[in-house]
């Protein structure tokens, strides 16, 4: 009976060889396909195994850290202070995914490396570890802005004109990023369309800019050489623009006034005429130079940014289109929708002598041992206007704060340049969108801001938004 036993053993050998073969197929030969199978959740889980880097504020205070659970996976936890930064930071949770800086800086935070260095690290027994992201955001100014907005829905953005560093990015209402761990809370916040707490109004909120847009119109007017600050235009009200009567705020009457005066008192009829005379082409060109009509170049996820511009039924419409009422675009009405980030960029560009800088939330990236891996250098986007135009505009904008609509933004001993805006959303119910954009100090600007608040009954930019801008600038210039 020994011969069949031997053959039986031969059969077992064949069967076991098949097992080894199948295991090889699954674990090595065809493994890549299985690893990338979309039903396979392991790659996402894999990232939870890496000690994700910290996110720090500008003063090095910790905003986000990773803690290891009993199952050895890391989970994201945000410090109490992170509530002030909720929108800029975003979140990183397995179930709901990633947003904000957590998403745009994921490669650094997750410690992603090229194949070779990860193999070398593995041989050295070093575990993959995420880098720390140090943001440009200033906790104290962030807190001032948050408190100044209070319970109102709105946003404050502050940028360093010369570098593009974003020093303040606040959107209200906020939320506690730690609470999003709970799927039910996340779903509820996500469904709350009335307050939209998860929306980063600074980058995603499209609002009617009102008179703050006159800075763009003025840039086109002066830089194209068509007008000077002293050119005079009639300020009577009403006048007919694109076949419909247009009035000044409170139907105020002005005679023949200079553009400087027209900006100081925010005279609608003058700027609408200027815009009509400049025409679609020139307005469109300067909007493009300022960065309208495309996503801002911020280090932030594309899906969480809105391009500012003229919107028609939810879609961007070129300002060159003949369907656009360019006179009303010139005074920030029509179907213009702009983000606070875009308007802060407008102010910062004027402050920076006409050169638009790339806005940046991240300051530097530091590895686990504290070495700076990457310092985010200031990056020039483009020259929007000549330096002399920027000087003239600065002069005109300082008049606004000195004696015009923006006096509430004036600082003790520091000259401020700015422009107010009050977009009338519902004239019958007096619902407005107040704005203020500006920068300081006038001669050597260190900070530019944009402030807006949603749906304020009867509120005007100079009364509601300018004081907030003042407090934020005061804090940042301290």
């Amino acid at each position, binding site marked *: 009976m020994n011969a069949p036993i031997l053959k*039986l053993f031969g059969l077992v050998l064949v069967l076991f060889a098949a*097992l080894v073969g199948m295991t090889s197929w699954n674990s090595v030969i065809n493994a890549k396909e299985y690893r990338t*199978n979309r039903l396979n959740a*392991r790659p996402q889980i894999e990232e939870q195994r890496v000690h994700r880097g910290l996110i720090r504020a500008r003063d090095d205070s910790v905003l986000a850290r990773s803690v290891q659970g009993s199952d050895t996976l890391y989970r994201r936890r945000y410090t109490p202070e992170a509530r002030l930064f909720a929108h800029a930071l975003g979140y990183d949770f397995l179930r709901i995914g990633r947003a904000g800086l957590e998403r745009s800086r994921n490669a650094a935070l997750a410690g992603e490396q090229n194949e070779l260095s990860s193999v070398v690290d593995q041989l050295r027994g070093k575990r993959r570890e995420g880098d720390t992201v140090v943001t440009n955001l200033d906790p104290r100014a962030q807190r001032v802005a948050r408190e100044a907005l209070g319970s109102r829905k709105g946003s404050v953005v502050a940028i360093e004109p010369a570098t593009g560093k974003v020093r303040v990015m606040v959107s209200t209402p906020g939320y506690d990023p730690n609470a999003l761990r709970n799927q039910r809370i996340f779903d509820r916040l996500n469904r709350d369309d009335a307050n939209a707490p998860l929306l980063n109004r600074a980058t995603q909120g499209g609002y009617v800019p009102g008179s703050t847009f006159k800075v763009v119109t003025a840039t086109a007017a002066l830089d194209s050489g068509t007008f000077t600050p002293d050119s005079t235009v009639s300020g009577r009200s009403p006048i007919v623009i694109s076949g419909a009567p247009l009035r000044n705020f409170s139907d105020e009457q002005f005679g023949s006034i200079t553009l400087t005066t027209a900006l100081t008192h925010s005279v609608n009829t003058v700027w609408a005429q200027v815009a009509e005379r400049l025409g679609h082409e020139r307005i469109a060109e300067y909007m493009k130079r300022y960065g309208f009509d495309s996503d801002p170049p911020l280090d932030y996820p594309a899906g969480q940014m809105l391009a500012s511009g003229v919107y028609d039924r939810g879609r961007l419409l070129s300002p060159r289109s003949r369907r656009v009422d360019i006179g009303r675009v010139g005074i920030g009405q029509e179907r213009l929708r702009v983000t606070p980030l875009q308007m802060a960029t407008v102010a910062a560009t004027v402050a920076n002598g006409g050169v638009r800088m790339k806005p940046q939330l991240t300051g530097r990236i530091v590895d686990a041992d504290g070495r700076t891996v990457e310092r985010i250098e200031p990056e020039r986007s483009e020259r929007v206007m000549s330096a002399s135009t920027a000087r003239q505009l600065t002069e005109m904008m300082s008049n606004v704060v000195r004696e015009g609509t923006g006096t509430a933004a004036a600082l003790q001993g520091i000259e401020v340049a700015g422009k107010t805006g009050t977009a009338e959303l519902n004239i019958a119910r007096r619902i407005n969108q107040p704005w203020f954009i500006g920068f300081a100090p006038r001669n050597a600007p260190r900070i530019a801001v944009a402030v807006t608040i949603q749906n304020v009954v009867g509120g005007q930019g100079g009364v509601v938004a300018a004081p907030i801008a003042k407090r934020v600038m005061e804090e940042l210039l301290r």
Partner: protein
Amino acid sequence: MTARNRELFALIPASLLVTAGFTAVFIQREALLSDLSLTYGAIFLALCLAAHLVLRITLPHADPYMFPLVAVLACFGLVMLYRLDEDLARDQAKWFVVGLAFFAATIVALRRDHRVLERYRYSIALVGIVLLLLPRLGSPVNGAYLSFHAGPIAFQPAELAKIAIVIFLASYLRDTRQVLVVGARRFAGITFPPLKHLGPLLAVWGTAMVMLFVIQDLGSSLMFFGGFLALIYVATNRISFVVIGVTLFALGARVLYAVRPTIQHRVDAWLHPFNPDLYNQTVGGSFQIAQSIFSQADGGLFGQGFGQAVIRLGDNPPILPAAHTDFIYAVITDELGLLGAAAVLLVYLLFVERGFKTAMLATDSFSKLLAAGLTAVLALQVFVIVGGVTKLIPLTGVTLPFVSYGGSSIVANFILLALLLLVSDRARREAELR
């Protein structure tokens, strides 16, 4: 060196392995080295030494490698279970003590002559069949009747039944193998066994079919019927009998496939594990097998390392279900890679080799058939579960012997080991005398 001294030396790598394994899991979990790992290693070594002493006294001539090979598998299983869930490992350790008690009891009871079993062959066969039908009293798990609950203890009688049936067949075939061969008739190119002896064999086939239909478990019936065919083949050296058997089994399985939706689901899940509809199906879907393959893919050549595989996240349902029983091979591949998994299979192969070697050394037919049958059943069991987990064949739930969690499996496989060592002791003693 005597056989027993060789065994003693061979146990050293096993206890080193268990200590190293626990240490690795400890370091991974606590980031510190605890003397607890040494304690575990010491307890395990003490248990092995106790079993070794039993063998030294009762079966001094038995094969010296079988027990250490089993110890390697067992310690492997313990470390794996410890990594999955400490409570499971502690439970399993208790079952090892119980298993070793049964091991010692079997050896002591049968040490004079294991062939007394032949006298009770019909009683043993009856016990085996009753054991198989017991779970039918309970409720099915995943569509199959696999376990029987006696108080708090869930008992999987199929594990013990496989031994009972092999004992019966070995004894029955010892008597009839000659007539099966001599009385065989050739018909249409195939050799058929004589009709009057076909009856009991058809009865075995019938039992396997009944098992298929009654307990609806393809895995254990495949194991049984495979063991039966292996024994017939060894007893008669007629491949045609095997062909007839396979044909009959295939017919039965085909009918079952047509009438039982649970079997159809298993086959569908096997053929299309990544079909989203099947994957998301809550009952009888392909989620398990897909996750098993994903874990193996996660392992690669060298694996993620002890304690590194993703089994579950927090308190959520596990990503890899039944990691401690059916899918423990997937966890091994995930953590130790292709090399680790192949090493485990190699240990089984070495054990199977010792088993068949014992069968070849044995002088009487009953012992030969018994050793060959037990070894074949064990090898088949490994093939059925590992084949299922790796998607070589449709998945059916049987345990990975000595490694998977499960009391009845441990006890039954230690009894199996005891029987093999009994056969081996007599065979080697006689070989030495010759």
